[in-house]
Structure formats: C-alpha cells, structure tokens
C-alpha cells in the first residue's frame, strides 16, 4: 500500500514537473521585458478589454525615446479614457530582430509599429502594416508633403505609415564660437560664411588659421558625407540593379575635395562619445540638425544646460536635406486597429494632437494643416526655443528648408543594406584620410555585392 502511494506521489510530481516546464506563462503575469512604461507591465498587445463593454483596451507601441512616449502616454490617458497606452523601449539596432522574432512566434507583436528610416524598406517588405488609404481609415495622402510620401509607401505604392516628424535639416551652430572666430552670430550672417561649398572651404581654412588645432568645422567626415549624400537624393535602385556610382560619386568627390583642401574636420564616429561631447566642448562650429536634433542631440548631451541660449540655426551649403526620421503604422493583426487609428489620427493627423509634441519635444509634423494660418502653432515658441536664444528654428526650418525640399528616395528591399554599407564606407573615409572617392565607391560596391549576390551593383 505504502509503495503504491509512493509511486502515485512520484507520478503526480513527475507530471506536475512536466506541466510546469511546458506551461506558457499567463500574459497577465508576464513581466516587462524592456523598460515597461507606466505602472502596468503587460507588454503583449493585449486582447484583454472589450471597448463595447466600456472596458479599457491596451495598445502597445515599441519605440525608442522615452520622453515622447511618456508624453503620448499622458495625453492618451487624458484624451482617450478607453485606451490604456503602453510602450516598450526598443533600441533601433535591435528593433528588426525583435520584431521578426515576435512575428515568427506570433506573440507580443506591438499594435503600433515604429520604423526608423533606415529600416523602413525591410519592415515594409514584410507586409505587416495596414494600408492607411483603404477603408476604414481612408487617409488622404494629399494632407502630407509630397517629399515624405516615398518614405511612407511600400513597394505596391500603398501608404502604410505616417511620419512622427518632418526632417528637413540645416546647420546648428554655436554662436559664441562663430562670434569668437568670425565676429558674427546672426543666422543670415553665419549663413553668408557657408552659403556654398566654396565659401565653406574658405571659412574652414580661415578657421584653421585663427583657431589652430582642435577646432573643427564639423564633427567629422561621417557627418559631412551624410549631409552631401542627403542633398543629392535621386532614385538609384531599379529592380535588382543598384547604381551606387551614380548615387554616391558626386557626394564622395565633394567630401574628398573639402577634406583635401585642408578644411578642419573632427574625427568623430557618429554617435560615439566624442561625437556627443562635441555638442558641449566648444570644438565644433557646425552640426547637422533637424527639428528632432534639439531634443535628441543638444539637450540630451547638455544636461547641465551650459550651452542654453548659445545656439543658432542656418541653412547648410548646398541646401536642405532629409535627415533621419521615424514613422508609425498599424500592425495588420492587431485586435484593436480602430483604437490604434484613433491615436495615430490624433498625433499624426491633427493640429491639436501634434501641438503638444511640438511644444514639448520640438518636432514638426509632415502634414500641411499644422503650418496654415496666422494662428498656426508653428508661429509659437516651444520648449527648446530658449536653447537658440529665442530663434524659432522650427519655423525657420519649415519656411527656408521644408518648402520645396527634395523628396526621399523610394524604398526598396535593398535600401537597408545600402544604408548600412554607406555608414561603413563613411567610417572608412573617417579613419583613412587618404581614401579617394573611387576607393570609397569600390569599397561600398564590394560590400553591397557581397551581401546581395543576386543584385547587380555598379
């Protein structure tokens, strides 16, 4: 009898062990995987809650940049009592991998998918986003600036994403340094120093003469190339043919010309510690700058606010260019697409919704309504205006750069690889001061060809 009981107990324990080992944790018990937002830690796109019963539905967004996400959470809590908005901080470098894992397993896919510009081609290719022009959304793309549409549409031409911010760019500069070395600080006067690339070279050589070593025109070759490549956008991917030479030669040659002329350029890799430090250490005059850069680059690198009020903004030589940017879309299999669309419509499509983002984060939107009329929010100061001594750089960007800016290039299945290879090539230019434009092109072509053996790369 005792033996039988012992065996029975052993069997129960073994089965319990097995069930414990194999059990899926309840979604409600699942702890947050990455920086859960707010007080709740349920991060899966919840199917809990039924709006028809007056229950809250949980909407999950994966993104980076906690400040904007927190702001959205506050506004949504107030504006949409039926929605419990949660966010998960996911670094841009990990986003694709994490998203794909979630999609492959069919779990934890966010309702709102944020896509950084470098990943858009790959994410749009997955065909996981709702067509926002189809019913029930019926979004009219004419509300957007023409320049941004190529970067929001998939290969079938469907609008599947809306911009978080409009990204025309110019130069942010340190007024104290321009005054110290050139005796000017107002945007028009500073722009006169760099009104074209010849002026930029002449100013750079003068800077070298008056400031000596350790003071640079820009943070490095990487930033210069990014600017030049951004200014020379045109379609260069046709099916499986990638025309790297046609797309990048001009930019590489100009960068080499500027470098070889002796213009002082820093040797900072983008986003490295020294690159970030350059915003406060007085070593660099000009910084590539879009509306999002004030929050993400200047304020975040100057916690002590030592440079507050010292900044100015002007056009860059050669005109404006689109610099980075994120967009958001609705996951096709989200159980709460209507609620997600409410959020997107509010923030990405209404003046009222975007006003708080403009005011608190300093971003500007890609839809025209925000800029229309004398009482348009763009005419008001925003949180970061005081960093620029009262200059409203958002209005400056819209008036002087945004209107008529060259459009983004269309997205392709190769876009992400090309962008990654460009970054790598720019790094090679940075570390090898003797690298020529031809060598840079060869390096880039070889890198792309090795990763895309089925493409014709020229």
């Amino acid at each position, binding site marked *: 009898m005792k033996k039988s009981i012992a*065996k029975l107990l*052993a*069997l129960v324990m*073994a*089965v319990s*062990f*097995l069930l414990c*080992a*194999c059990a899926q944790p309840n979604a409600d018990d699942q702890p947050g995987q990455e920086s859960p937002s707010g007080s709740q830690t349920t991060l899966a796109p919840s199917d809990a809650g039924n709006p028809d019963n007056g229950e809250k539905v949980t909407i999950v967004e994966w993104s980076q940049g906690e400040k904007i996400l927190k702001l959205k959470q506050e506004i949504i809590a107030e504006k949409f009592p039926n929605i419990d908005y949660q966010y998960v901080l996911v670094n841009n*470098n990990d986003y*694709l*991998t994490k998203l*794909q*894992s979630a*999609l*492959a397993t069919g779990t934890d896919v966010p309702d709102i998918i944020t896509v950084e510009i470098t*990943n858009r*081609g*790959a994410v749009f*290719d*997955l*065909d*996981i986003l709702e067509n926002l022009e189809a019913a029930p959304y019926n979004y009219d793309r004419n509300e957007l600036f023409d320049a941004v549409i190529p970067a929001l549409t998939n290969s079938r031409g469907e609008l599947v994403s809306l911009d978080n911010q409009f990204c025309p760019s110019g130069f942010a500069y340190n007024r104290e340094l321009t005054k110290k070395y050139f005796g000017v600080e107002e945007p028009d006067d500073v722009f006169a120093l760099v009104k074209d690339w010849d002026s930029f070279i002449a100013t750079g050589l003068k800077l070298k003469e008056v400031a000596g070593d350790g003071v640079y025109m820009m943070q490095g070759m*990487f930033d210069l190339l990014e600017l030049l490549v951004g200014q020379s956008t045109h379609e260069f991917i046709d099916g499986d043919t990638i025309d790297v030479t046609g797309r990048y030669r001009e930019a590489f040659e100009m960068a080499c010309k500027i470098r070889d002329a002796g213009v002082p350029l820093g040797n900072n*890799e*983008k*986003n*490295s*510690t*020294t690159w970030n430090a350059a915003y406060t250490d007085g070593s660099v005059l000009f910084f590539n700058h879009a509306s999002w850069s004030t929050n993400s680059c200047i304020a975040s690198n100057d916690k002590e606010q030592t440079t507050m009020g010292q900044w100015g903004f002007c056009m860059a030589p050669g005109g404006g260019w689109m610099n980075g940017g994120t967009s958001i879309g609705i996951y096709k299999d989200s159980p709460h697409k209507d609620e997600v669309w409410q959020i997107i419509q509010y923030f990405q499509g209404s003046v009222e919704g975007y006003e708080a983002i403009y005011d608190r984060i300093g971003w500007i939107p890609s839809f025209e309504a925000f800029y229309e009329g004398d009482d348009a929010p763009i005419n008001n100061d925003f949180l970061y205006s005081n960093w620029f001594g009262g200059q409203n750089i958002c209005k400056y960007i819209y008036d002087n750069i945004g209107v008529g800016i060259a459009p983004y290039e269309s997205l392709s*299945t190769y876009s*992400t*690889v090309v962008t*990654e*290879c460009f*970054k*790598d090539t*720019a*790094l*090679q230019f940075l*570390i090898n001061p003797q690298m020529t434009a031809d060598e840079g092109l060869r*390096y880039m072509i*070889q*890198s792309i060809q*090795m*990763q895309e*053996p*089925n493409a014709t790369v020229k």
Partner: protein
Amino acid sequence: MKKNNAITLRGRKMQMGRVWPYLFVLPYLLCYFLFNLFPMLYSFYISFFDWNGVSPKTLVGMQNYVDLLTKDSLFWKSLTNTLAMVAISIPVQVGLGLLAAALLFPMKHKRAMESIMFLPYIIAPIAIGAIFANMFDWQFGYINEVLSHLQVISEKVYWLQDERWAFAIVVIMQIWRHMGYCMIIYLAGMTSISSEIYEAAKIDGANSVQLFWHITVPQLRPMTVFLVLTSIINGLQLYEMPAQLYAGSSAASGGPQFSVLTVIWKFINDAFGPKMRLGYGAALCYILFVIIVAFSMVFKKLTAEED
C-alpha cells in the same frame, strides 16, 4: 481462484515495474522533443523554403543550399574566417594551457594562479567582447594610450577598423578565454599520471625536458584529443565575442570588409537581419552542422589510427 488472482496481480506488478522507468524518463523525453528535437527537425524542414517568418512559405527545394555554396561569396568568406580563427587559436591555446599546467603542477600554492587563469573562461563571451572593444577603442582604449605613452606609436591606431588587426584581436580573445580551461583539464590529467613512471625515467637519467616530452605529453594525449575536438566544435560556432566588438559601431556587420565575420554571425544576419531569410539561415546552419560532424569524424579517425 485465489491462486489465479495472485498470479494476475503479480503479473500486473511486473508489468507496472517495467513501465515505471519509462514514466520517469517521459518528462525529459517530452521536453527534449519539444525543445531540442522538434526545433532541429523543423529548422531542417524550413531550410527547403523561402520564408521570412511572416509571409507564407515558398518551397524552393535545395535552392537555399545551392545558393549558399555557389553564389554567396560572403558565406565562403565567413567560413574561411572561422576556419582560420580555429586553426590559429587552437594550437596556441592548447599549447599555452599545457605549458601553464606543466609550470603550475609542481607548485605547492597554485590555487590562486589556477583561479586567475581560469577566470576568463567563466566570463560571458559578450562581456569579453565588450572588454576588448573598450581596450582597443581607438579614441579611449588604453592600448593606444599605453603605446602612445611609451612612444611606440605617434598616432592612434584604428585597431578594430583594420582587417588584419581586427582578425588578430578576435584570435587573441579566443586564446585568452580558453587557455585557462585547457590548463585546468591538463592539470587534472597530470594528477592521474603515475609518479612511478617519472621515478623510473629519472633513474634512467632523464632530465626535466625529457620527462615532459616523453612522459607528460604522451600521457596527456586523451586530454589533448578532447580539448582539440571540443575547441574545434566551439570555435566553429564563434559569434558573441567578435559581434560584441562591433556592437554600436557604424562598421558593417562582420568588421572591416567582413574580416571577422564568422559563420554563425552570418547566420544571424541572414535569418534575423533586414532580409529575415529564415529558410536560408536554416540551410546555412545545416551546412555548418555537416562541417562540424565532418571535422569531428576526421579528427577522431586520425587520432584513433594513431592509437
């Protein structure tokens, strides 16, 4: 009647007695099937498909394998890199491990040294990658600082952006991590060598070097075979350390001109990178599996023949 019942009961007990062992191993078998065998078989299955994990699978037959072996030069580059890393690092780490063991074995107070030398092996590979990335960082790394201070270099060296240096750093990391492990295995092996053999050799006039070459090394042969074989298998799966060297860098995945791209790194890029080619990645893994099995069999055969 009673007798018949007793026989039936005994029969049942005997039957149950045979069943119990199976019941006890069942949980393990089920877990093994769910978490090991099924994923292995499933990945073999998807290696015949073009699939990104989201869209429907498209059957492509052997095309993934053919493309990998005939079109994908980056696969061959990654394989060459990995084999070269293995070929260079294993003899050095095993040799240094043996040397360290031979020097430490006669010492009385060797615990501290053993622990220090074994420490790198228990550090997570990702942490080692991060440590080396900081050490060899061209702006802040103290390798450049020290060399500049000693006036060995006049300008800072871009260690991680030079193909040859990047490769050398990965090999150094491998050696640094595994040398202590080899030493520990050899030390354990040395304790099992009979002191009588040494004493007999000493009586015959053998010196320390002769003792080492003619007694210690041959007696440790099983350990050497084990270390080389496991190092080959581990070496062919190298990923975390080189990948961490370039984490957060603008450099292309795989280092400058893919000079430190390993097979597993290539697999991660293909399966979970922008293209998300899960079928292609699975095919790559199975090719690596065949390579590892082939290496293991050849090595076992070679060492068995010598026995």
